[in-house]
């Protein structure tokens, strides 16, 4: 104690070891239980200031409650972070071996990712210890551990058998760099300087012309209707007639829908159900054809005509030139608009219609809203409730599939002989209907958030009843920490 200035290094090391070895982090019998499930950091992660903040206040609360006589548990974990981790390993493999994931079998590439995880993953766990996190490490779970996988399969099969999980052609946020669908939450909107291109579409057997304004003229190659407001006297006499799409000469119906804003723009909307979220809904309402003009990598497919295989960016340039030449493009106006970008790849998101797996969240989100409204769960500060409500009241169904390898593989099997599709918690060998061995498991994996959503239950043993009884704490994690809802 004669040391003048406090020497933190030795003291910190000494006490962490004494606490951990002396089992001081384990839950001790108390009046009530108090559990905080640490938001599992990514396996790719290195501790940053945000983590440090999270750990500090969670650990402060845990230590406080522990000293107040609660049976406390600070539950640590780690997240496999599908897109992030696969991205890191793909980059490394390319740097070292100049190979992409398609040069390997799925199994072999997954082995590479597991190897990377064993060697480099989890650095963050040591750093959490350095911060003083008083976790019971015996409860530690990784989101791709067998226990986690069991929980995911159980939840999935249960929801599937109830009919809440379904496949659908749906318009999704397609990341052309990652070549996967991403959720609304993973899209970042950035302001981009663009243009409104005003184009003239001819009406068939008539001298009349409809003026359409668009920021993405290349998409006209996928147009399947032109839409006007039924009460707009300028155009409603044309409803039911045919318009002709420039460049590809496709004949498309002129439809009436109140979605069109008569006051704004030209009053005429081109409808591209395959490449715009709002147009997709209009297409649903009017049973329009869906045309997909893009390849998975964001280049134009055969619907691209002369501009086939060009990127959207390049095709747009060329198409504008051609439209000018044909005197279809009558004016160009500057326009600043919000364009969605993938938050990982930073590339422009192209809405695309593709077959994906969805979870119907209607009933579940209503129940969640009820939990907050009944104050069984409280937000601190309270005003965050409003953000929660804006997300959870009338949410779109959740797209849970990802075109990646690193993640929980969707436990659905398709029989190639009789076309029967079924979900199962075990690795099936035969079709449940016709017993054929010609069955294949779905290629896609689940959104990381699917396993994360189950985390408070998975970490406490669910669905293993025996495990759940052993854990002395009831399933009731007291508090969730987030920096946004």
């Amino acid at each position, binding site marked *: 104690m004669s040391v003048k200035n406090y020497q933190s290094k030795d003291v910190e090391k000494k006490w962490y070891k004494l606490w951990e070895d002396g089992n001081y982090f384990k839950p001790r019998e108390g009046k009530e239980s108090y559990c905080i499930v640490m938001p599992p950091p990514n396996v790719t992660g290195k501790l940053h200031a945000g983590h440090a903040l999270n750990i500090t206040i969670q650990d402060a609360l845990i230590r406080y409650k522990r000293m107040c006589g609660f049976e406390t548990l600070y539950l640590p974990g780690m997240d496999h972070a599908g897109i992030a981790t696969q991205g890191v390993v793909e980059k490394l493999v390319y740097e070292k071996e100049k190979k992409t994931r398609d040069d390997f079998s799925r199994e072999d590439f997954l082995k590479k990712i597991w190897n990377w995880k064993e060697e480099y993953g989890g650095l963050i766990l040591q750093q959490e210890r350095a911060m003083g996190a008083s976790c019971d490490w015996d409860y530690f779970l990784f989101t791709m551990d067998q226990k986690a996988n069991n929980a995911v399969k159980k939840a999935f099969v249960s929801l599937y058998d109830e009919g809440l999980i379904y496949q659908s052609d749906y318009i999704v946020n397609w990341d052309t760099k990652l070549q996967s669908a991403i959720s609304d939450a993973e899209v970042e909107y950035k302001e981009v300087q663009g243009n409104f291109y005003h184009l003239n579409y001819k009406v068939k057997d008539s001298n009349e012309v409809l003026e359409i304004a668009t920021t993405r003229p290349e998409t006209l190659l996928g147009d399947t209707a032109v839409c006007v407001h039924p009460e707009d006297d300028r155009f409603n006499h044309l409803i039911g007639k045919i318009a002709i799409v420039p460049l590809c000469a496709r004949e498309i119906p002129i439809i009436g829908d109140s979605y069109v804003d008569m006051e704004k723009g030209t009053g005429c909307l081109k409808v591209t159900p395959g490449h715009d979220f709002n147009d997709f809904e209009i297409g649903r309402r009017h049973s329009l054809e869906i045309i997909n003009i893009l390849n998975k990598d964001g280049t134009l497919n055969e619907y691209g005509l002369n501009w086939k295989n060009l990127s959207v960016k390049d095709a747009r340039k060329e198409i504008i030139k051609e439209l000018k030449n044909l005197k279809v493009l009558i004016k160009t106006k500057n326009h600043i608009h919000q364009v969605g970008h993938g938050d990982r790849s930073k590339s422009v998101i192209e809405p695309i219609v593709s077959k994906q797996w969805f979870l119907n969240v209607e009933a579940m989100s209503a129940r969640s809203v009820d939990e907050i409204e009944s104050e069984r769960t409280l937000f601190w500060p309270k005003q965050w409730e409003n953000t929660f409500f804006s997300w959870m009241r009338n949410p779109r169904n959740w797209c849970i599939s990802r075109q990646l390898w690193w993640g929980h593989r969707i436990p659905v099997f398709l029989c190639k002989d009789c076309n029967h599709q079924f979900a199962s918690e075990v690795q099936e060998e035969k079709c449940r209907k016709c017993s054929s061995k010609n069955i294949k498991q779905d290629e896609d994996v689940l959104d990381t958030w699917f396993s994360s959503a189950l985390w*408070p239950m998975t970490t406490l043993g669910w669905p293993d009843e025996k495990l759940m009884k052993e854990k002395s704490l009831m399933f009731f994690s007291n508090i969730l920490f987030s920096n946004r809802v």
Partner: protein
Amino acid sequence: MIMMGTKFKDITPFKDVYIHAIVRDKLGRKMSKSLGNGIDPIDTIQEHGADAFRFTLASGSGYNRTLNLDPERIGGYRNFINKIWNAFRFIQPFLESSSDEKLNISKLDHHERWIISELNSVIEYINKSFNEYRFDDTCNGIYHFVYEKFCSWFIELSKPILYGKDLEKKKNRVQVLKYTFREIVKSLHPITPFITEELWGELKNSDEDLLIIQQYPTFKKEYLFEQDQEKMNKFIDMVQVIRNLRANLNVKPKEKVNIQLFVNDSSLKSYFEDNKRFIFELSNVESIEVKLKINERPEKSVMGAAIDTEVFLILDKAINLEEQILRVKKELEKTMKEFNKVDKKVLNPKFINNAKPDVVEKVKKEHEELKEKIDSLEKNLSSISL
């Protein structure tokens, strides 16, 4: 998680959802590689220790949306950690003769009742703020108690007793110091676990286990001494005013001054008179007179206002008031010139928009500091101008 939890277990998985702040750099910008403004936690832990880092993060966390992390703040809280360490080092030799006995309330003197009651109030406050996720309030509460009340005042007042000859008084004072320090480390443990566990090793009784599982301090009605708190806080305020007046007049530390106190009521008069010797210990005065406000104020003096008390510092040949007024006026002039230069920059939109953000920040800080300096010089001048 709420959706899945209620679906499969039919209960909500959480009672509370706490939205914490987002960490930014000291200028409020997102930390990024390109800006080179990141703060690496591991480096910070190496440099300042985990406890200082934790205290900084906690003290910036409540219901705010962003936390602007300033390395200087971390350094500042590191000094706080050191202060606690040094306070302990001071007390430690006296602890050797202390016992494991509980505090005897009947034996407490006025200052001891004061500090116990102040500690009690803080304990009530921090328990409440912990439960409302106001970590910033918790940290502030503990910081001010430890830094000001405990270290600056109680330990200072204890020195004569600890070095004195009255063994009975010394024994009691040591008991109180030990009790208070134990409560301090318990209170701080959730935020700064390492240093507190280390100090606990020297403070605990032989049959007590580690700090991490000790009982957290709670408010005790029997340790509430509101009258002692009120009186002592008035005393502290009054002494601070004496110190300010000395500073404003540039009185050298070794020079003694003559003070007259004018108070509202006779109970405060008796209190100050009973505690005169402490005024002598704490502020190098030659003489003190305590009078009621109904009496005439002294001529040739400067006045400072404290709670319920007017403090007069008598001007005698030791203090050349005219010289002092001139001195302050000169400094004020100089500072205003400096301020005007900086003010021009701050009001120039070209500068604000074109200079680098950290340069702008530096200039803005200087602007604030000079403004404050002018303010205090003007107050100083008015307090000594008759």
